[in-house]
């Protein structure tokens, strides 16, 4: 799955050297100058910034509690107690944040959870 350039962080000031190590046409006049480097300000929209993303699992009346616990253990490697705590939070509060961090990994987790037929979404923290 290709989901765009989310690995990069924030705004970047990129210095373009303009192949500047080579002499310019002023050489003919006896002086040798190099072109000034161009500074390009690359801006990115808020969507592209790698702010933390949350993996949220929502309540579902069909999925069994024991099954959901097993899925949390398998997907996130959580110990049984932690997996059960999250499962109960889903059951009682309707949702639980299972993980937060980089978008690509969060997407992978959501994909895995969907593979187990859980209702899971990806949400931006801010």
């Amino acid at each position, binding site marked *: *799955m*290709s*989901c765009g350039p989310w690995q990069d962080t924030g705004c970047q000031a990129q210095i373009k050297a303009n192949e500047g190590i080579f002499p310019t046409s002023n050489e003919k006049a006896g002086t040798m100058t190099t072109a000034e480097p161009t500074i390009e300000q690359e801006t990115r929209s808020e969507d592209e910034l790698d702010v933390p993303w949350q993996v949220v699992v929502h309540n579902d*009346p*069909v*999925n*069994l509690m*024991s*099954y959901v616990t*097993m899925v949390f253990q398998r997907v996130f490697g959580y110990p049984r107690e932690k997996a059960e705590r999250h499962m109960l939070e889903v059951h009682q509060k309707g949702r639980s944040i299972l993980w937060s961090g980089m978008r690509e990994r969060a*997407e992978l987790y*959501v*994909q895995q959870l*969907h*593979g*187990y*037929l859980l*209702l*899971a*979404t*990806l*949400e*931006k923290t801010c």
Partner: protein
Amino acid sequence: MEIRRRNDHIEISELDPFLAELLRQIPASANPDGVQAAEQRLFSPPSNGKQTELCAEWRIYVEPELRRLFQTATETVAADLQQLNGNEKSFANRTLRIPAKHADEWLSALNQARLVIAAKNNFTENELNDHFRSPIGSRRDLSLFQVNFYGFLQESILRELES
């Protein structure tokens, strides 16, 4: 009906014809085709609607993978269920042996079937949690029994995997 682990198999024995028929129904029951609610439940969106680009990419790249994954599981279960299609007398109790390595496919197929049946019948949470419902008297009752029976099998398989 009895479920136990025997070496590298999970054995479901003393299956009466009715329960054997419900087992045979798993692959067909897991098919969401033609029912939008069931399709939407199996292939739910990855975001709460704000991330339209993500949802669009998801449909292109992830959904086909999920379809393959679910289909592989139901095909594996269908192949295991061939054991129930022998020439034994139709009223005789049967035994089904599920290879332990197929346990994940069974868990998936049972879950698919439960979700699809629940979506098709629009079962409420109260109905799904009513495990002391009166005897089967309608098609809807039968579907609810099916959901509960498959849930019981899921629980049993999970227990056998943990033990």
